[in-house]
């Protein structure tokens, strides 16, 4: 209540600003939504009951677990591990490591994932049906010395694995590592230099400083974009068919649609599964962010002010 008995102004009770355009926008959206719902319900080609049925078919579920989810997890583990390693190499003082990391990133960022998967699935198997790991020019060296040995230590029949999920994971993981390297590098660089100085002053060797002090703090910066990458990877597993790996969500549900001449329910079934998986991942991502954000609560304003002042003085 405003009080007129005192001269000093009292509690504020002001009229809110009007937002007429919000109401207009709401009406437009409502009409559009109604149109969509009506189309869902009246156009029988949608055939949602059949889409739900496809979602529950065992080949589709198998494709979801063994192709989409296993492929995502595998490719991201490879991508993150290799990516962090590349980032550390890129920031190392060793020029050879720096160069290798740079060339790797350059190459794998330039190759489309679809092309890379075809290359690994078909091309490599065509070039090298069998992998021999041994001394370079071992066969020739053996002939030259008149020996039976071709200096081969390990043999792998590539064609026996070329159409498996492992090649798919390899391709997606190698490509992902190039992007993760950049993300991890940004994360590492975001950690204040004083942190590694403090660790060094305590007698920590560089490797331990990186693992125990810098990387855990870099994670705070690395996690959000990595969540995005993971969600993107879920969708990129639909490229596994290029290897070809057909135990995969989209390929399986699309095939169901094609075989029954009901294309749309097949696509809808895959779409709904992708929506579900990505929603779950988003929840997981926000939990991870909270975990790695620990200890980074708001610094008291006074300290912050003082610190920026010092920063400006130097």
């Amino acid at each position: 209540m405003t009080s007129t008995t005192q001269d000093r102004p009292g509690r504020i009770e002001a009229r809110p600003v009007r937002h007429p355009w919000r109401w207009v926008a709401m009406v437009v959206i409502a009409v559009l939504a109604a149109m969509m719902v009506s189309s869902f319900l009246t156009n029988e080609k949608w055939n949602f009951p059949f889409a739900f049925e496809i979602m529950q078919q065992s080949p589709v579920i198998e494709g979801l677990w063994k192709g989409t989810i296993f492929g995502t997890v595998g490719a991201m583990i490879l991508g993150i591990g290799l990516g962090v390693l590349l980032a550390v190499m890129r920031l190392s003082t060793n020029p050879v490591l720096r160069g290798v990391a740079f060339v790797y990133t350059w190459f794998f960022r330039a190759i489309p994932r679809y092309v890379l998967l075809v290359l690994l699935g078909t091309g490599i198997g065509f070039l090298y049906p069998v992998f021999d790991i041994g001394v370079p020019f071992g066969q020739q060296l053996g002939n030259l010395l008149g020996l039976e040995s071709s200096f081969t230590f390990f043999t792998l029949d590539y064609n026996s694995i070329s159409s498996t999920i492992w090649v798919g994971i390899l391709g997606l993981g190698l490509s992902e590592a190039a992007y993760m390297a950049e993300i991890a590098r940004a994360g590492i660089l975001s950690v204040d230099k004083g942190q590694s100085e403090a660790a060094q002053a305590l007698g920590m060797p560089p490797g331990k400083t990186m693992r125990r002090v810098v990387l855990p703090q870099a994670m705070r910066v690395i996690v959000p974009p990595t969540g995005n990458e993971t969600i993107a990877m879920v969708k990129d597993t639909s490229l596994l068919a290029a290897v070809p790996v057909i135990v995969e969500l989209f390929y399986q549900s699309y095939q169901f649609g094609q075989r029954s001449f009901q294309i749309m329910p097949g696509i809808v079934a895959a779409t709904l599964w992708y929506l579900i998986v990505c929603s779950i991942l988003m929840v997981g991502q926000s939990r991870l962010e909270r975990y790695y954000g620990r200890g980074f609560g708001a610094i008291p304003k006074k300290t912050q002010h003082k610190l920026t002042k010092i920063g400006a003085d130097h």
Partner: protein
Amino acid sequence: MAHESGTGTTADAVPLVHAVNVTKAFHGNEVLKGIDMDVRRGEVVVLLGPSGSGKTTFLRCINQLETIDGGRIWVDGDLMGYEDRAGTLHHLTDKQIAAQRREIGMCFQRFNLFPHKTVLENVVEAPIQVKGVKKSEARTRALQLLEQVGLGDKPSAYPSQLSGGQQQRVAIARALAMDPKLMLFDEPTSALDPELVGEVLKVMRDLADGGMTMIVVTHEMGFAREVADRVVFMDAGVVVEEGPPANVIDNPQHARTRAFLSRMRQEEAAHAEAIVATVTGNAEALAAIAKADAESEEAAQAAIDNARDATQQR
């Protein structure tokens, strides 16, 4: 690295820190121009000097956060950063350098606590990870040290939840946990609000009373006068004057020292007046002080520059 420093009697005679003709340049700008300094065991040395005089750089050179261009630094008989093999210097490996740093504790202006670890985790990190101390032992010792710096009740707090003074005291406990022979303090109270400076200085004073060898870069005149065994005044990369605080602070021989000290005194006086004015809410007085402060600063800087030019011309 444990180094044979001979029998007890010679160990006392040999200075703990022995620096000879140390030079250092950043991008061609010579910051240290041949510093000689010996610090005896148990001695507290305060480095004074205007900003840019090289005192912080020299401190960082002692534990190799900066590499020196010329001269030698020995700590407890160990040549820092190099191995002398028959007259030829060989660079030490990162691991060997880390081992040398274990013996030297350091506190930074901006504390540099590990923000993702609790207070206790900060203190036990280096003993466990670097020295291989058992977890339970490290914990007991850490709690003891936290008690010693007056933070026995905060082991599970994160650094961001502490005041600047508390953070700096944790940083001191963290450095002490490695049982260093030597403690380096790089402007430990410059980032603190005035009311928090005292608690940190008290901890440092207790440490000095306990016989710790300390090299302290600070602008706290009171601390220098009461705690230091020796004050070293540096300017423009050289040691201008050194001796007991009573001589250097109260009866300086060189013009440069006098100019610097008079400026420090004015600042301290202005600071005290400002606090009184703030407390009493005297806005006019505050404005007057600020104006006078700015003027005197200019004048003092001019005096220092004049004195420096004069000595250099000589």
